[in-house]
């Protein structure tokens, strides 16, 4: 309920976040060098805790209501497995690393899986401001988790960095029978707030890899791009990838 109140106070008519893809300039190497929120950009490859080399590191945070599948999405992405069976709720924040190859660069994503429960809100707030990207999840079989997205976006606006990359994900897209939130509703909401959107399924693996890769591409692009280079279009990339993936699968 506290989040609902927050929405009222902020006024939900106005988009709380500028789109990460919309007009902002001067995002070159200078931005990367600025000490904003602990961005790691070493001149030569570093070694992460797990002993893997990487060129750049970014912090990605998974947020959303309790039970929408944040941990499952992460486990699917990291280990390619689906956590079936009983519901395991995350305690506090869970940190994991994964190194991706993006355009010949090794990009380390430091992924913070947060607990959706209300009592951990204050802990997660403290980590918003260090995050470079936020994957905001709702559950397509749970209307309430979708309704709470506005409140989450308000919260993100309040605590996260101005230029944070936000992506809205409608998870559990495989559950056709239990679905209560239509794809179009998700798209509409994402458009209203100017954030890229896609539906995912940790169970089937649909778009899971793509969600993380797209975010990594966007972040990498921002950091390494020359001043006159065109901006990376996250939503366009996602749409294109989804289309090609779609025809490959069928």
């Amino acid at each position, binding site marked *: *309920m506290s989040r609902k109140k927050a929405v009222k106070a902020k006024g939900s008519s106005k988009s709380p976040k500028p789109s990460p893809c919309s007009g902002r300039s001067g995002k070159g190497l200078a931005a990367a060098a600025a000490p904003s929120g602990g961005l790691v950009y070493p001149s030569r490859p570093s070694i992460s*805790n797990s002993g893997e080399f990487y060129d750049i590191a970014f912090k990605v945070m998974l947020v959303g209501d*309790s039970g929408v599948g944040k*941990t499952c999405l992460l*486990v699917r992405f*990291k*280990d390619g497995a689906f956590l079936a069976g009983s519901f*395991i*709720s*995350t*305690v*506090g*924040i*869970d*940190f*994991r690393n994964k190194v991706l190859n993006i355009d010949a660069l090794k990009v380390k994503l430091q992924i913070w*899986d947060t*607990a*959706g*429960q*209300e*009592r*951990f809100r*204050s*802990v997660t707030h*403290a980590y918003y401001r260090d995050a470079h990207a936020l994957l905001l999840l709702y559950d397509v079989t749970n209307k309430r988790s979708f309704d709470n997205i506005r409140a989450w976006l308000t919260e993100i606006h309040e605590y996260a960095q101005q230029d944070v990359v936000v992506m809205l994900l409608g998870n559990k897209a495989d559950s056709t029978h239990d679905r209560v939130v239509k794809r179009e509703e998700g798209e509409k909401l994402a458009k209203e707030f100017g954030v890229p959107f896609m539906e995912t399924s940790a169970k089937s693996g649909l778009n899971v890899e793509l969600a993380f890769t797209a975010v990594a591409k966007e972040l990498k692009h921002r950091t390494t791009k020359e001043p006159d280079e065109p901006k990376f279009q996250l939503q366009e990339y996602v749409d294109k990838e989804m289309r090609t993936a779609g025809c490959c699968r069928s």
Partner: protein
Amino acid sequence: MDGEVHRAAASWENGTLAPVDRLRTERADSPTPGLVEGTEPGAGQKSAMFVHAQSFEDLTAETEEARKEAEGYSELGKPADSTDGIEVLMGKDTISEKQNKKEGWQDSKSKEEDVSSEAWRSHRKHVFVLSEAGKPIYTRYGTEEALSSTMGVMMALVSFVEADKNIIRSIHADGYKVVFLSKSPLVLVGVSRTSQSDKELMRELQYIYYQIVSLLTLTQLNHIFQHKQNYDLRRLLAGSEHLTDNLLHRLDRDPGLLLSAVTCLPLASSTRDVVSSSLQAAKAKSLVFSILLAGDYLVTLVRKKDQFLHHIDLHLVFNLVGSSSSFREGEGWTPICLPKFNTAGFFHAHISYLEPASDLCLILVSTDREDFFNLSECKQRFLERLSKRNAYQALKDALKSPSYSVAQVGIPELRHFLYKSKSSGLYTSPELPVVYQSEEEEERLMGLYHDLHSRLHHATRPLRSIYHCGETENLMAWVTSGFELYLCFSPLGTKALAVSAVNKLLKWIRKEEDRLFILSPLTY
């Protein structure tokens, strides 16, 4: 019970069998070693790791308040427990109350478990938590919604007695014990059909109370209910119900919770020393406790100088780690209140397994909520040092046999035992023999230990020793100022054999103490 009991002489508790000075310097291995606290087998050599606990009595409200005052604990808004509360024993009245409850149960049905069913009623032990406004917060069985009227009745009982400036402690009727624990702003109620005493049940409710405080802090609890008396606390506790469920399960099964002690992974002292010193070296400014666990065994604990961990707090940490699988893969970072240390604030714990498939879990307790990366680095340093000094492999080898067989002691008629060193707050116990390995038998044996414990620590008639002959086993229990010992023998043994077995066992424990206990705890 056709047993034989000795009344504890009042003067005995403080009496010694040898000059204290001599015993403190020389660790005796005479027939009954360590009758003096601090010299018993398993007693720490330098200083205790834990808050010096008066063991069981420690958990009863009166002594707790006194101890806290003595130690200068400050607790916010905590009302002093009245010590002159009476035990309300009601006959007829209770039955009529019960009927009221039954009516309430019939009104409400639940999906999970029908609270009006006979099955629901026949559970051995129920636990309910409610707010002072009578709002349900937790029930062990069924759903809270279905029980709101029952909990309303419970609150009515509490308020009714309170109106007369009195405190309701328990109701005994129809083979049930209903125990009330009022810990503003919460009320906890236990309903039990077991033979456990009120005091034991009260102690279990205390644990549940501390579990809730450890999730929210008492300050936050008070704050919430001061602002909104009819707040539904389940919102804040969402996702933690299994922690309370597990804790209740542990209270029935884990001897550590019964003994107010912790058991250690049997480990060569040389290996343990390396592990401890590696952990000691991997320190950070904000670190207060570094704890290495292997399942339910403590491997080592390093603490900040002058800061002590209470065994209850450690059990809550055990419970948190044991109830969550989310720490297996990554590194967890969570706020945790250690209520026996400070009910007002959160510590921040870095929790991670040394390897995803390993049972070794490292918990770094810090005061700084921004210190995650620092602590993550501490863990790396600890791991590096551990491998460099070849202790990691030795540790992993020790994990393959985390327990020992009672046969090692060499007493044929001895089946099982629990031995607790009072001064160190550590206990040791062999693995369960085959006869007690089934679920029911394990529960039955633990029940027997619970009974012995309850009789030794009786509120008005405490006992020093008990010998009990049963049909399926003979039991013996002995408490001294230095240790507590519970033994289970084959039913064919005699009392004389049992007494000689105790001496033999104590000698064996003395011989093995550096492997079974942590004798030299370290500080940063």
